[in-house]
């Protein structure tokens, strides 16, 4: 607070208040409960209480066949279901030693990048809403709707899409897919400019986000943060580059990084990422190869015994699948490495000494999805 003449903080200093934020709270983005120890409005310490959405997805995985389990991963990070599906399918493919044919990989890349844009749009809208700007959320949903329409046309579902199958794709792209994607891309950049016009140079937005929730690069690495949270701290690391999957080695794109690791930097990083995703989609849509859309992997999947860890750059960060096979039709152990779960762990460190209003901003900037945190 510094020299702020706020009476509340100085007088309340006498005793600490425990404030339960959530599990029902407008800006905890789901059923997250943060127990805040407050000195006035200043956060002394905090504790995240999670698990309200725990469904035992990993246990379920052990009792389903590989193909049966695929729809379940859509329900972890339910705002980026396509990305989850990609991670899972590729992990099982790696376990089988199979590889999706090029056309499938291209389509997967396009859809995943669209999903990244959709996820970031949802983040932007809710984050701005948390900080009090209520209009961007509607603009964001307008664009997200376009993406969801493409998903719907492609596979019939909008949210939990189950778009990909192990070994490739189930569906060929629909007629007009490319036109739809191109049309979306054509409008999209100017729309991003529109959001930035509302926020990036806005004095209040800058005051609310700059210097708030700083995470240094060393801390980010030590705490296992990944995705935009890590890049916002200035670590130039993207799994799409480090371990290219799908067709990412074919496209040019930049990895935006921040400098100070504050909320504003993470905001800028995600905004840039949307632009980069747009760039990837445009490159991919122009170069989709023709050919088969699925590898031959047989109907009954019995991966040879062994184990695999495969991770992708999901919109929220490193989404990993660790699957152990015992040679049967069901995974022996299926572990999901959830980016939100690991990123959320940084929250306490980031909000100490800040105000309640900043807690909201920091939760928003971490971009968590409770379905994924709790699984």
């Amino acid at each position, binding site marked *: 607070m510094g*020299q702020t*003449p706020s009476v*509340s903080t100085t007088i*309340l200093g006498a005793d600490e208040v425990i404030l339960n934020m959530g599990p029902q709270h407008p800006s905890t983005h789901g059923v997250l409960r943060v127990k805040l120890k407050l000195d006035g409005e200043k956060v002394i310490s905090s504790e995240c209480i999670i698990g309200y959405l725990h469904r035992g997805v990993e246990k379920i995985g052990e009792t389903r066949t590989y193909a049966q389990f695929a729809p379940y991963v859509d329900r972890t990070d339910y705002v980026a279901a396509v990305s989850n599906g990609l991670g899972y399918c590729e992990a099982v493919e790696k376990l089988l030693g199979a590889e999706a044919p090029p056309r499938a990989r291209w389509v997967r890349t396009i859809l995943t990048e669209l999903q990244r844009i959709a996820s970031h749009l949802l983040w932007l809208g809710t984050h701005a809403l948390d900080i009090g700007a209520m209009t961007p959320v509607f603009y964001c949903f307008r664009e997200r709707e376009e993406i969801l329409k493409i998903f719907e046309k492609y596979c019939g579902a909008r949210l939990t899409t189950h778009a990909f199958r192990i070994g490739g794709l189930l569906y060929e792209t629909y007629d007009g897919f490319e036109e739809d994607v191109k049309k979306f891309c054509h409008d999209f950049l100017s729309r991003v400019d529109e959001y930035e016009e509302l926020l990036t140079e806005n004095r209040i937005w800058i005051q609310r986000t700059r210097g708030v929730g700083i995470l240094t690069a060393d801390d980010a690495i030590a705490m296992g943060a990944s995705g935009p949270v890590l890049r916002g701290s200035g670590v130039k690391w993207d799994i799409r580059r480090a371990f290219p999957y799908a067709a990412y080695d074919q496209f040019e794109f930049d990895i935006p990084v921040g400098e100070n690791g504050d909320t504003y930097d993470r905001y800028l990083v995600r905004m840039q990422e949307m632009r980069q995703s747009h760039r990837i989609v445009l490159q991919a849509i122009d170069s989709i190869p023709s050919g088969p859309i699925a590898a031959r992997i047989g109907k009954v999947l019995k991966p040879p015994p062994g184990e695999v860890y495969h991770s992708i750059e999901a919109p929220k960060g490193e989404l990993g699948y660790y699957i152990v096979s015992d040679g049967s039709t069901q995974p022996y152990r299926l572990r999901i490495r959830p980016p939100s779960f690991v990123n959320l762990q940084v929250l306490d460190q980031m909000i100490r000494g800040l105000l309640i209003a900043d807690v909201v901003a920091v939760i928003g900037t971490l971009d968590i999805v409770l379905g994924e945190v709790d699984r």
Partner: protein
Amino acid sequence: MTFYEVTFYVLAVVALLSAILVITCRNPVHSAIFLVLTLLSVALIFLQLQAEFMAAVQIIVYIGGIMVLFLFVIMLVNLDVAVRQAPYNRQRWIAGFAALVLLAEFTLFIYQGRDWAKLPPAAAEAVQPNTELIGRALFQNYILPFEVASLLLLVAMVGAVLMAKQR
């Protein structure tokens, strides 16, 4: 009784009753509310006396300012403890005695001054807007005391800020 007399007595009774309630209420917030009521009825009595400026200032300063700050502070202290404490234990008799003395004094003086305390019948219309009168009084006749008082308050304010900053 005229309309004005009726309102006066009603206001006076309200003011007195709520004043008593201020000190008898156990809950400080309730006390504060009754204090607001007291101040409000006094403000209305000012209004009746065609002292609009005084009435308005009474409301702005006492209710809008001081009472809000009172409530602000009351809310911050631990109420449960305050309610459980019985602060009047020892002083009850002394206070009662002091009150009696004061009452006797007042009665005496009011009785003595019953003649000259009578006001001349008020003019039907205020001769001059009393805001201007007050302004002239403060800034012309009593400019020195006024400025001294404001300086004093300024010193107090600076001191308070300084003390708060040191914490």
